[in-house]
């Protein structure tokens, strides 16, 4: 591929300024590029010439004088056409790549577990031990912020079990010194977005709808991009995502086959509004 372009351009006619440094024996002076086979050059040249021939044979009378003193080599026409086609493909490619990168884990961190002071496993604590979300995330029903457990909450159990585990040393250290643990944020909204947990939970949006099966994550990662497009999808169609209030903290909840009907019913019952005003989240 890297060799294609010099070959390609040389077969279309190398600009005169380059001809002077053209060395038939070894290629471009000072470069390691190989000179293409002259036969290939001619063949490609002919192909493009024929493609453009029909148009150029009959110069418009108005341009007659101009065509006599032609500035560009005839091949320039072909070059122009190819460039346009190529540029379109290239631009599409770049946009596609940018989109993929933008949606991909590199930018969104979807599926990426981050370093934490303690490799806390939701899977162990939720699935194995059966601890409810709200045991640690105490303010999820009353505040915008779901709440992160104070060290004291960890120590309710870990002063008794695994009390000597090396892996829990940062927790014990925090409890001893009064210095907080600094957890890395997984779900990090931009500062101009104001999300409120309590209203979503109270209106029947389950934890797993946004956070995925946290109960099956040994290390926590996010499963959704948290892009506005993703938020708006639910804000426009809450009936597709809402679940009964008593199922909000059920991590294994599966939407029933009649979600469309159930959703409509719950939206009416819970008085759920489809809020798509900007100031719902931005202020």
């Amino acid at each position, binding site marked *: 591929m890297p060799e294609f372009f010099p070959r390609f351009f040389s077969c279309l006619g190398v600009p005169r300024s380059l001809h002077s440094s053209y060395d038939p024996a070894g290629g471009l002076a000072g470069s390691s590029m190989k000179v293409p086979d002259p036969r290939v050059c001619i063949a490609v040249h002919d192909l493009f010439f024929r493609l453009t021939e029909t148009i150029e044979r009959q110069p418009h009378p108005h341009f007659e004088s101009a065509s006599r003193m032609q500035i560009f080599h005839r091949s320039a026409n072909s070059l122009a056409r190819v460039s346009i086609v190529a540029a379109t493909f290239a631009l599409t490619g770049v946009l596609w790549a940018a989109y993929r990168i933008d949606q991909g884990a*590199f*930018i969104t*961190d979807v599926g990426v577990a*981050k370093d934490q002071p303690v490799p806390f496993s939701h899977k162990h604590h939720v699935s194995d031990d059966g601890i409810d979300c709200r045991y640690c995330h*105490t*303010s999820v029903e*009353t*505040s*915008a*912020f779901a*709440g*992160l*457990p*104070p*060290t*004291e909450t960890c120590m309710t159990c870990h002063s008794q079990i695994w009390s000597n585990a090396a892996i829990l040393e940062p927790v014990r250290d*925090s*409890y001893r010194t*009064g*210095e*907080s*643990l*600094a*957890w*890395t*944020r997984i779900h*990090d909204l*931009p*500062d*101009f977005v*104001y999300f*409120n947990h*309590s*209203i979503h939970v*109270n*209106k029947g949006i389950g934890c797993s709808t946004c956070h995925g099966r946290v109960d099956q994550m040994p290390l926590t990662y996010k499963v959704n991009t948290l892009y506005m497009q993703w938020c708006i999808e639910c804000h426009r169609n809450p009936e597709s995502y809402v679940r009964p209030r008593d199922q909000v903290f059920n991590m294994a909840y599966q939407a029933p086959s009649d979600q469309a009907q159930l959703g409509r019913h719950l939206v009416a019952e819970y*008085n759920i*509004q489809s809020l798509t*005003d*900007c*100031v*719902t989240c*931005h*202020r």
Partner: protein
Amino acid sequence: MNPRNYWRSFEELDQSEEFRQFAADEFVHRIPAEADAASRRKFLRLMGASMALAGATACTKQPKETIVPYVRQPEEIVPGNPLFYATTVTEAGLGTGLLVESHEGRPTKIEGNPDHPASLGATSPQMQASVLNLYDPDRSQTVLHDGIFDTWERFTAAFSGARDLAGLKKGEGLRILTGTVTSPTLAAQLAEFLEMFPQAKWHQWDPCGRHSDYAGSVAAFGAPWNTIYHFERAARIASFDADFLDPASPGGLRSTRDYTGRRRDAAQDPSSEFPRLYIAESTPSITGGMAEHRFRMRSREVESFADKLMSGNGDPYASIMKDLNAHRGESIVIAGEYQIPRVHALAHAMNQALGNTGKTVVYTDRVEANPMDQTASLAALAADMRAGAVETLLILGGNPVYDAPADLDFVGALQQVKLRAHLGLYANETAEWCHWHLPEAHYLESWSDARAWDGTASIVQPLIAPIYNGKTSHELLNLLLNRTDLSAHDTVRGFWQTQNKGADFEDFWQISLHDGVVAGTTFPDKTPPAANVPPASAAQQTAGIEIVFRPDPAVGSGADSNNGWLQELPKPPNKMTWENAVWISQATAQRLAIDTGDVVELALNGRKLQGAVWVQAGQADESAAIHFGYGRKRAGRVANGIGFNAYSVRDSKALWHGAGAEVKRISRGYSFATTQYTQNMEERDPFRVATIEEFRARPGFAQPEGEGVPPPNLTMFPMWQYPKHKWGMSIDLTACTGCNACMVACQAENNIAVVGKEEVAKGRHMNWIRVDRYFSGPASEPEMYFQPVPCMHCEDALCELVCPVAATVHSGEGLNEMVYNRCVGTRYCSNNCPYKVRRFNFLLYSDWNTQSLWGVRNPDVTVRSRGVMEKCSYCIQRINAAKIKAEEQNRPVRDGEIVTACQQACPAEAIVFGDLNDPNSKVARRKRQQRDYGLLEELNTHPRTTYLARLRNPNPEIGGA
């Protein structure tokens, strides 16, 4: 519509060509490019280089953020939900109850305590701004010994030695200087101190305290009395230079509530008598703006005005006296702090003669502990210091080196003292001249207590541990009393334990803390003896110009000058920011051939200062007003070196006005930064006013009529429906005094940046709500009106039509939304806004670097960056919070549940916000009043913010009203 001409400056009144050009610009463009730090050329040059970088930075990932939970979470804290604590702020010693919002232990916003009599929920601009001082990076952060860092322990060691030495001489040579003290605990400590050290002395000095009020009551009654005025009961008020609506004056918030409350009620209820206010004053105050009849005169002429009024002869005195006599027991005569004691005695005598005593004017004991003539007290201290009689001086708060009267030469005297220690929030001018300086705890970090202007005691409760290990006066007194281990908390609690007469102290204490008032501590009314009026003062010097001293309307006496919110707050009568000036009248300016922007040298009693002149409409002729609070040298980065120090020509014998000054010009061309002369709505009729008779005769006077007024709901399309909520605001101009409390409240609530004088001069101030001031009538005797202007949230908003990126759009509840993250900064919206309420971040105004200032930010509002438009959101964060709360409780939002920041602060209850879909809501009921009108309604914008027109009640017997 009544034909009135409104003007804002003399240039506008004259309609000069220069003014027309100036007014045509939305932003001031005639600033030379070289004066502009980021000129267009420079910007383009820089932009070329930074374009590539800008493109690259847009692709960066979000930075890593951490969540830091508590180690042991306090029980009452729910992260994300603010808590409110009751505490007390003191101004010149007098307490006002507050409720302070705290986010995870970080105080962010001050609100008034509705249960406290001095506040009733309102706050002054200074109170609102006081939270910024807490986080001020220039606050004193460490103990200083001879200007070098030292420790509290070493200070206590050094000072204990001096105390013990003084103790051997029964305290001789030991002096304490405080401000006005109303704190019962501190008073008890000081009493104990004076008992322990009988030869020691306690001096007091407050540069803007209640000097004349004290001396006036002594002159009238032979003993100090405290006067309380009930403006809600008064139909007629005569004010001798009393600026009782100034929210910083004693009981000022309550006076405003009472006075404007009566006006609001009377506007609706014809059976209630609309109050009428007469005022004689020298320099325009907001009280003067509310007056029906304002008599413009030099301060020293107010005495003869009062005398003539008392005699009741001549014009207009006979008419006023007749009016007052017709309302016996229902009128108030009030003398201001800026008048001499004799005028106060006259007012007391007139109230007694009018039968007002015990009805509209009641008397109690003085609320100050150990009330005294503070000027004499400070003079005595200075004399003793100079005589070498003072060995140890402890200055508890205050800044006498800066604010003592100039004739006392306090600095010179201070240097004769062997050991000087200063406790202060800032290492200020006084700290510079003291051996020891101790950082003081801010009131939001302190345990203390205070009495309000009516005697009601309340506890000062801290919201945060002292950030810089500051100490309180209580702790310093404990050091003197040799009880160093007793904390301020234990001292205050211990004092109230001795006061509690009920059964359970713990209950009493918790209730007092929770409610923010100590029940049953309001002073009972007492009847004073007959007032005695001292003989008229000897003929005064009348030649030369009179100098009138006033605390600055924004920064006050100067104690909290280092506060950007207050510095950028426009002074009500002239909308000047960031400095003080010499205010003189137009006639005097013409006589002296000087003009606004001339720098003059002002000489009074041989002392001189230099300041720039502002020709002020409404200022008395041959009178110059200068304001305290400026000319600071060691205030901090915000206030250092701006304006001039008016204390430098103040004399202890004439605290508030001095005669015989000379004014001479020394240069020209000084420029001020004012706010109302840019961004205007010229050739329109924004303010509407009528007398009460006109209103009763034609209740719809405020409604537009005639040509060019579109019929209501003129549109090609069907009117948009707002089925759920329909938010709206009503502002009652009959109540609004123009005190600016709303502006600072908005700034605190919405993280509004401070831009500095240069940017204000370019019309780039950021306040979301501004208070416009209009003059009406002749240039010599203008009426002054105020009009708060937030975003109108037009239903057909012109800004929305022109935004190319839909960054400003309409919500389903009729809010005009501003979406910062969409805004690309074209400024088309601002250009198209007829109300000029949009504010653009031309530069990075928000301080993102000073870490201590992060604490003051409201976490519920985005901190805006450069290149983004912003404007009033109707406090959308409060709307959303209330809606979420209501939804969670499965009920509709109650009327009055959503209170905008401006509404909450307003002492006049002029602003009401609510749901227009609810016909019984307060705002809907207000908008049904006939005085309701919209600003620039003829543009068919359908503003959601509307006004209730101003009503006046002039005396028909007095001409020219």
